[in-house]
Every structure is written in C-alpha cells, then in structure tokens.
C-alpha cells in the first residue's frame, strides 16, 4: 500500500497570506486576535481574528489579472477567494496537476458561504451558492479539476477529517494526490450562536490557562498537498501521514465528554495502528479551544493515553478558532515545527488550569521532533486524531 507524504501548504489568516508570513508573525509573538467593535458582527466588542478584506480583494485581483484575465473579483464570494488563493499558492510550489484524474480536491468547511443568507448588495449570487457542494463545484470548475471534490462538514474536526480520509484514499490507491483545503469565514451567524452558548471569551482566548474564559473565533483558510510521491510535492523533508482515526463521545451534542473517553479512543487507535508507544510522540498539537470543558476533557484524554509529559500547545491563541479550517491550519504549523525541530509557545498560556498535569509549551524551544500527534474535537461529540512522522 502506498505511503502518504505531506507537501507544500498555504495559510491565509489575519496573520498573513502565506505559511511563512503566518509563521514569522507567530514567532514574533503576535496574535491575530484583536478587539472588534463592528456592530454588524457583534452587539458587544469581542476579540476576533479577521482577514484584511482590502488585502483579500487586492490579492485576488492580482491573481486573476495574472492567471485568469476573463474573471472579475465580483464573480466569487469572500470564502471562495480565500480558497482559490490558498489552493493556488500551495499548488504553485508543487509539480502536481490539479486537472489530472489522479488528483482529488477535499474541501473542509462548517458553514461555507453562510454570508449569502444576507446577499451582499453589489452582487447577487445564485441562491444555490449556499450549498456546500455548489461551493465545491465553483472551485472544481475554476481549477478545471475532473473530479467531484469531497466535501467534509463535520464541525470543528472537518479539517483533520479531510486529512484522514485523504490519506486513506491515497493509501488505497484511489488517488495519487489529494489537496486538502479547509476554510470558514466569521459572520454574525457564527458569533451570535457561540454567544448564545456563552462560550466566547471577552479577552483573547487562553487555552489550558488557569484564567481561561472561553474561546475566540477567527476566520481562515489552509491548504496542504498530500501525495504518494514525495518528489513532486514541494517539500525538502519527507513527512508521512502515519495514521488517523475519528470517534464519537456518544455523550452530548454540544458539550465535550467529561471523561475524555472519545478523544482517548481516537488516540489509542492510531497509536495502535501505527505501532507507536506514547513515548514515541515528540509533540502534540491539541485542539485547545480555551473553554473550561474542552481543555479539561483534552487533559483527561491525553493523561489517559499516558501522553502527559509530551510538549503540547494550542494555536487558538494565535488566530482563534477557525472552525473547518482549524485542523488544516494547525497541522501546517505542526508540520513546520517538525521540519524546523522547534516547539512554538502556546499563545495565551501562563499557568496550568486543567486537572491533569500536561506539558503545555510556555516558551519557544528547540527539540528534535520526529513524530507529532494532532487532535481535534467538536460539537456533535466528534473527535479526530492524526499522526505525522518523519519515519
């Protein structure tokens, strides 16, 4: 069976439009979370990580003027522009042909073009554009892909699930290359919902910290290219996707398990199938939303899996919870950490505030990272975990 390698990538968030720009800003200690007073988004001021819309439009105009002169900016929604720029940027670093039948696009999103429920005045999009398969079709047609994209919409684990199912399809020989792209935008739709749950923090979120006070939302898009052929994916270092699994808490639709069993099951399964022991894991990129219950649940699951000593961080303090994009964006930064053998500080963390003693990264460190565990959990009781490895 084919091995699956992780290759070129791209991140678009408030911290930048490329992976390197994002990483540079994270290393500087910057956070993309900034207090927004935009009443169209929220009746009360709130920390949000929002993409610079002028920059998105100008970047997109530059892109179409170079590559697609027949198109105009108004042909695409905000989210579609993010997806197109992200996919284009990641692909341009590889020798993969998206128009090849052996290449599949996987789209991970929770809400897609949800802003079209209130159509923008300047351009009316067809009603069907709110359907996630139509969003996928727009991207398929734009890039000329011959295959119907796979669309994953599974709450906050959508991004990690895209990687897991993409890996399975390459391994089974259904495709040679898979482009996993995850994206979501922040509108009053999502903000009001999380506000109704009273889970939003008034300050930028502080995952795993004693004084954490809820999550922060962010928008973003991330793209990673996977392939069975490491020579064509634009990466100098061979990093494999070893194993992935998902699970359900079977406990509550909007609250995480109190015991951590669901996440533990996913972690246990992938350690077993990749024949690894807990001590083989060098670094964990956790979900870490900074809600009381989520972080507590994760500490229990990691502890149950005997992963307490392993350095762990959450990137939610950098650009908030980017929903369907989160698993992809956070995997990209984890892959970067592996390539550079560095551990990035868990932004917002000062003092451990979960019941199980876990090793949250409080400052930048150098460390040989050969194997990394990425986890995610979400509404509906879903959990996912994936292992990246240099071997």
């Amino acid at each position, binding site marked *: 069976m084919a091995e699956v390698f992780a290759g070129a990538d791209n991140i678009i968030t408030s911290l930048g439009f490329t992976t390197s720009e994002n990483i540079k800003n994270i290393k500087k200690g910057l956070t993309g979370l900034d207090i927004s007073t935009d009443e169209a988004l929220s*009746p009360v001021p709130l920390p949000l990580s929002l993409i610079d819309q002028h920059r998105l439009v100008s970047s997109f105009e530059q892109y179409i003027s170079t590559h697609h002169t027949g198109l105009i900016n108004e042909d695409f929604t905000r989210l579609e522009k993010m997806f197109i720029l992200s996919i284009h940027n990641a692909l341009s670093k590889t020798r993969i042909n998206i128009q090849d039948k052996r290449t599949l696009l996987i789209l991970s999103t929770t809400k897609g073009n949800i802003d079209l429920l209130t159509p923008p005045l300047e351009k009316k999009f067809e009603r069907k554009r*709110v359907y996630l*398969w*139509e969003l996928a079709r727009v991207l398929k047609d734009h890039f000329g892909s011959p295959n119907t994209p796979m*669309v994953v919409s*599974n709450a906050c684990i959508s991004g990690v699930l895209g990687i897991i199912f993409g890996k399975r399809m390459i391994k089974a020989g259904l495709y040679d290359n898979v482009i996993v792209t995850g994206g979501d935008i922040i509108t009053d*739709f999502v903000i009001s919902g999380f506000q109704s749950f009273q889970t939003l923090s008034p300050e930028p979120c502080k995952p795993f910290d004693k004084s954490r006070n809820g999550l922060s939302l962010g928008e973003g898009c991330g793209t990673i290219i996977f392939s069975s052929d490491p020579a064509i994916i634009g990466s100098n270092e061979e990093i494999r996707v070893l194993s992935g699994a998902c699970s359900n808490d*079977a406990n509550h639709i*909007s609250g995480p398990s109190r015991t951590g069993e669901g996440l533990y099951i996913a972690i246990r399964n992938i350690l077993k199938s990749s024949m690894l022991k807990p001590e083989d894991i060098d670094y964990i990129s956790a979900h870490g939303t900074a809600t009381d219950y989520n972080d507590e649940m994760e500490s229990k699951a990691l502890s149950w899996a005997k992963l307490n000593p392993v350095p762990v961080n959450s990137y939610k303090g950098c650009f908030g919870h980017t929903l369907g994009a989160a698993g992809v964006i956070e995997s990209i930064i984890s892959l970067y950490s592996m390539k550079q053998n560095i551990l990035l500080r868990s932004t917002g963390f000062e003092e451990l505030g979960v019941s199980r003693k876990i090793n949250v990264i409080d400052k930048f460190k150098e460390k040989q990272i050969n194997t990394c565990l990425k986890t995610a959990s979400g509404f509906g009781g*879903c959990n996912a975990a994936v292992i990246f490895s240099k071997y």
Partner: protein
Amino acid sequence: MSLFITKYCSIKNNQVSINGNIDFTFKDSFEFGKFIRAAYRYYKIRYPKFFKMDNLCKLGFLTAEILLKDQKILNSYTSDEISIILTNSSSSLETDEKHFETIKDRDHYYPSPSIFVYTLPNIMSGEISIRHKIKGENAVFICEKYDPDFIYNQAKLTLGKERVKSCITGRVEYYDNNYESLLFLVEKENNIKDKNVKSEFIIFNVANLDEIYKS
C-alpha cells in the same frame, strides 16, 4: 474482505421501508412533522429528546432507530467497533435559516443555543451515537445527490480498519419538507454470527447500492 448489507431502511414519501418492503405508511398529511411523529409512535420509540431535534436529525435518528431495531450489532460489537458514515445534500440549511431569523433584526435579536447547535449536519450522527452508545469512526460528507460510489468507497475504507466491525452508512437529506433517507447496515462477513442467513444478505457494492436506491 467480503462486506454484506445485513439490513437497510428508507424513509421517503410518507413511507418507511425495511429491506425494500413497505413497513409503515402515513396518509393523513404530507407535512413532515406530522408524518415523523406518527412513525415515532408507530415504532413505539420512547426517547423524549427526539422532540427537541431539528427535522434533519429527526429523520436520521428515526431511520437509524428502525435500522438497528432487533439487530444484534449493538450487543455483538463494542461501542467503538461500530462506525457511522453519512452523506447529505443540504447540510443543515433549514436550521441555518431558522437561526438566521433569530439574529437578522437587531431589535429582535434572540439567538438560541437549542437552535444554533443544530446548524451542523454532524449533529445527526451525534444524536444517533448518543442514542446507541456508538463511539467508533464518525463522519458526515456533503454530496449533491445520492452517490453510491462515494458511499461505497468511504464505508469500505472505514471498514478496511481492523478495529471497525460494522458501518451504518447512506444518505439522510432534509430541506423544506423535502426529505429522503436510506441507511444501510454493513458488516464484515467473518463477523456475521448466523452463517445460515448469510445467503439472504446483499453484497455491499456500488451496483447494489444503486439498485436499492432506484427500486
């Protein structure tokens, strides 16, 4: 690895069918709410949480309920050996619109957690998981139409894992009173306890998924 469809259940046009045979028909109204409540009562289900669910979840929940009724899988497999792979076209659009109604007028702004939580299609697999204590692989995908190739490939890949013994898979679609569900229970040959009845089972392949949907 041979895979078999050991049972399937569909709900559409005011009818519930089990293994292709009509099992319940409702003639009083073409309103989904009335039909699904009548079916709930007909199958003597007692699960008060059902009434809190949105229509998509009600449909998925009830289809799974009838699919798993009298089946041994819940006893013969552990909770993490059963997987759920679902597809749908409209995601949670109906509830999305309902949530949007609660926020579009800032003078009447009343977002509600009990609506908002249903603005994700995978809440449906969450509800099924909670009801039957299913903790295995769990994923929801969006496909414009019923797609037998997609369902076959993803369920087969999931069942390719040694730890996964059975899969509840298919399609559950609901939007604006238009609805249709078709769920299959798929099991591995070597796990099917009663060897004698094996000949009655349908081979899990694209042709059969296609034929069952069309019939």
